[in-house]
């Protein structure tokens, strides 16, 4: 069972701000979903190859050719904040 603390840790990992009330509701729903999901644990899957893709095919490769034109102006027009050809975010210290 997830605690409120767990929920807040996951929310932080997912970059979602949750108020106290939201976190409590989320905890309840997540626990209900995880309880349903827990049916899986009883299944014997020894020796079963995990299935990541519906079809058993392999990756197709692109030739190493430049095909994309510069569309900076189109793309920057979508940005909440941009200047001098850059996307802007609050100052980051690393």
């Amino acid at each position, binding site marked *: 069972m997830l605690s409120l603390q767990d929920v807040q840790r996951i929310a932080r990992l997912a970059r979602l701000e949750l108020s106290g009330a939201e976190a409590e509701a989320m905890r309840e729903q997540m626990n209900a979903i995880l309880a349903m999901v827990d049916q899986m644990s009883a299944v014997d899957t020894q020796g079963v190859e995990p299935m990541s*893709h519906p079809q058993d095919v392999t990756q197709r490769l692109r030739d190493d050719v430049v095909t*994309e034109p510069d569309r900076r102006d189109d*793309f920057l027009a979508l940005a909440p904040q941009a200047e001098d050809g*850059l996307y802007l975010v609050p100052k980051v210290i690393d």
Partner: protein
Amino acid sequence: MRADWEVVIGLETHAQLTTASKIFSGASTAFGAPPNTQASAVDIALPGTLPVLNKGAVERAIRFGLAVGGTIAQRCVFARKNYFYPDLPKGYQISQYEQPVVAGGTLSFLLDGAVKTVRLTRAHLEEDAGKLLHEAVPGSSGVDLNRAGTPLLEIVTEPDMRSAAEAVAYAKALHALVRWIGICDGNMQEGSFRCDANVSVRKPGGALGTRCEIKNLNSFRFLEKAIEYEIRRQVEVIEDGGKIVQETRLYDPDRDETRSMRSKEDAHDYRYFPDPDLLPLAIDRAWIDRVGGAMTALPDALRGRYISQLGLSLYDAMLLTESREKAAFFDEVMKADVQAKIAANWVNGEVSALLNDAGLEFDRSPVSGGQLSRILQLIADGTLSGKGAKEVLREVARGDSATGDVDEIVASKNLKQISDGGAIEAAVDQVMAANPKLVEDYRSGKEKAFNALVGQVMKATQGKANPAQVNAALKKKLG
């Protein structure tokens, strides 16, 4: 204090691959374009865009695997490494986690005259992130995504290195190798080759200590200094009764110290899982053979040939294969009929020193392999003395001669050795006549006087007399 601590170092190197386009998009990877002009819809992670893998990036990984004798996976998988940062548009980096393209392999290099071998754990393909610019716009950080999606090969070693010097020697050898096989331009200023160092200390024979990772070391000097600092720091912490905390640290070259990157601490649950937008990559034997067939001779193969066919020592062979350009230069010299050991000495000695002084690599050498081989031939037939040959080398390097013809330079600069018996005897006679004291000293048993007389003859002939002949003539005349 240092004596009873053993240092354990492993390196992770990010080599930017020399493809024209990005690893998962058709945008250009050229360096230095105005910000975000090489960031395509895929690179900025517009909703609905999807990655398609660049064949050229895989080929370069195969080349690397072949060059280090690693195992190239017949089937490997791309995974998502999830974390939020403004330079990472998708909120995840496409990398390889459980099944990398290359496993194992080794890299050998010289350290203090001995051959060292470092084991590689793996090499995997991944995409680079963009760049944050903190100075461009006041109060904000600017995001430039031109670099986002540039292909990287991350090369990870086992914790096999025991000193900062060894780590640097490994890094230099790796740097030379990736350039040798043409998968990375090695430009460290542009960030094409950067290292992360995992450093820990322990009592010899004891269990491995807790390690710290120093990120983004983009020069050999910083690599060395950062590791040295980190070793000192860790030993001090432990000797003061403290404990090392596993963490990521950043090297600050201005202060010559490493410091903790606490800002990224909480981001360490990367939630890796296989990228559902990409399928497993299959690499068959035929493809590996095609890539291998198109590769130039590898350092290992050249070393083997130098040792078995030319009779060189492993040490000489390692030195000659420090870089592809150097080996190519040596091969050029060896096209003429010259003695391998002498050629190796000259390439590793005089020519390397000359280039080092000029800050040049072998591919930009002002002296060609052909010119050097002619000089060596002129030594062998007695036309040039060793000293004269060095002068000829410098003259050739200066490049004043229009033709660069070695024989012409020897003639025009009058650098030919005097091997004419008559001329040498005349000079000897002259010197003996002018230095009766030295002659007398020698005859009364003072051996040193002989060398002084040789010196006088050489001086009288402006150093051009064949020293062996001078010796013989003096001995005869002094009786």
